[in-house]
């Protein structure tokens, strides 16, 4: 049972921005609603107006232009897991999307909504940060692009301004890049996720890889990897160094999925598994 509200269907980005300005704090952007409606049912959020962005044609679709994969704001997890372009360009993202939530949440929930809600127990932001993704935002003063690592500022916190909507997520897809994401969960959402992306030369990290640990801390955390430049992927020493660095990168938060100590232990274990998966990735 929800309290009364009015849904406004925006048909253009400009219209959505106008509605944001008109209703201010009384309105929320509404996409799949898988988080928003839950929060409203629980009574932790209340908005008299919802701005439905799903009718906006510009926000739909996935496109690969030169070296960037552009994912429109209303693209769902369901769309991503089935998309042939995504499967070719970033197989690790396809695999991740297949394992987000359950089939119903994937069918309705968008990638953009997942990012903006910034719930720490999430999968895509961890991999997308490792891949150097950025978000495109549109507001009254025009558009801006901002790296995802700067956009997510904390638990349930982003740099989205009051007049803005997220228009697309852009992921660079340099062909030499491989990527891997591994996760573990016992509840509905991940207890931990680790992502690795980077160039490989002769079975070694060509330079320091991008490694992020997600879901255990307030937001995905970057692992210090300078010492891994040139390290062999299959070397036991590399795995040890990575596990150590990953454990040092996070300040785990105890919750239903486990204690802080247990989670720090998991971080080491899953950093090793991520490295093994990365070494396997073609």
């Amino acid at each position, binding site marked *: *049972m*929800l*309290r*009364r*509200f*009015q*849904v406004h269907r925006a048909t253009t980005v400009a219209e959505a921005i106008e509605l944001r300005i008109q209703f201010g704090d009384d309105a929320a952007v509404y996409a799949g*609603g*898988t988080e928003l*409606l*839950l929060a409203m*049912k629980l009574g932790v959020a209340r908005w008299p107006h*919802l701005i439905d962005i799903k009718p906006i044609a510009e926000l739909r679709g996935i496109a690969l232009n030169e070296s960037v994969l552009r994912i429109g704001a209303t693209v769902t997890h*369901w769309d991503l897991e089935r998309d042939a372009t995504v499967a070719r360009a970033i197989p690790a993202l396809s695999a991740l999307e*297949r394992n987000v*939530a*359950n*089939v*119903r*949440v994937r*069918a*309705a929930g968008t990638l953009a909504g997942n990012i903006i809600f910034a719930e720490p127990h999430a999968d895509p932001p961890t991999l997308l940060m490792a891949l150097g993704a950025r978000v495109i935002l549109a507001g009254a003063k025009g558009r801006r692009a901002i790296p995802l690592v700067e956009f997510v500022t904390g638990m349930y916190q982003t740099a989205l301004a009051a007049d803005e909507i997220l228009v697309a997520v852009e992921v660079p897809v340099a062909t030499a890049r491989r990527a891997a994401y591994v996760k573990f969960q016992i509840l*509905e959402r991940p207890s931990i996720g680790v992502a690795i992306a980077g160039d490989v030369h002769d079975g070694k990290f060509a330079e320091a890889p991008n490694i992020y640990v997600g879901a255990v801390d307030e937001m995905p955390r970057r692992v210090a990897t300078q010492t891994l430049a040139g390290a062999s992927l299959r070397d036991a020493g590399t795995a040890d160094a990575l596990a150590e660095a990953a454990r040092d990168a996070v300040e785990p938060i105890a919750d239903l999925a486990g204690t802080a100590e247990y989670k720090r232990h998991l971080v080491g274990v899953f950093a090793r598994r991520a490295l093994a998966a990365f070494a396997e990735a073609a």
Partner: protein
Amino acid sequence: MARSIRVRLNGTEREVQIEDHVLMLEMLRGLGFLGAKLSCDAEVCGACTVLLDGRPVSACTTLALEAEGRRLETIEGLAQEKKGGAAPPKLHPLQQAFIDNFAFQCGYCTPGMIIAAKSLLDEKPRPTPAEVRHWMEGNICRCTGYQTIVDAVLDAAGASGEPR
């Protein structure tokens, strides 16, 4: 705000009056469609699963107005009424397979289970056991232990494709 929406509900075009904040499950139950159940109310258990343009959604956390101009399928639409009326309706292969495989006990989760399985078989008529398990992961049953449910879905897949 009240609005009038047109929905293709189980194959029949209907006009329904709803308010914006009404949930799809509330609309359906208000119309007398009691198959989809309220249980976790948090998109976790799958008891309220219905198909919107063929995709499974949690009716407990979907606005009714999302059905506007779209196809909405519930468990009530699966069995085929026989001409003449007197004979019992012909069950959908999934419904028959759930009976044949003892795939339910209390039955509360069953409409959601069958509807979720239907969306799988519509997309992939011959799934592997692993694919069935992955797809049905978000539908919770506290009676059967799941094996009979997986068996039923695979059985129905055999019935609608080549024999197993």
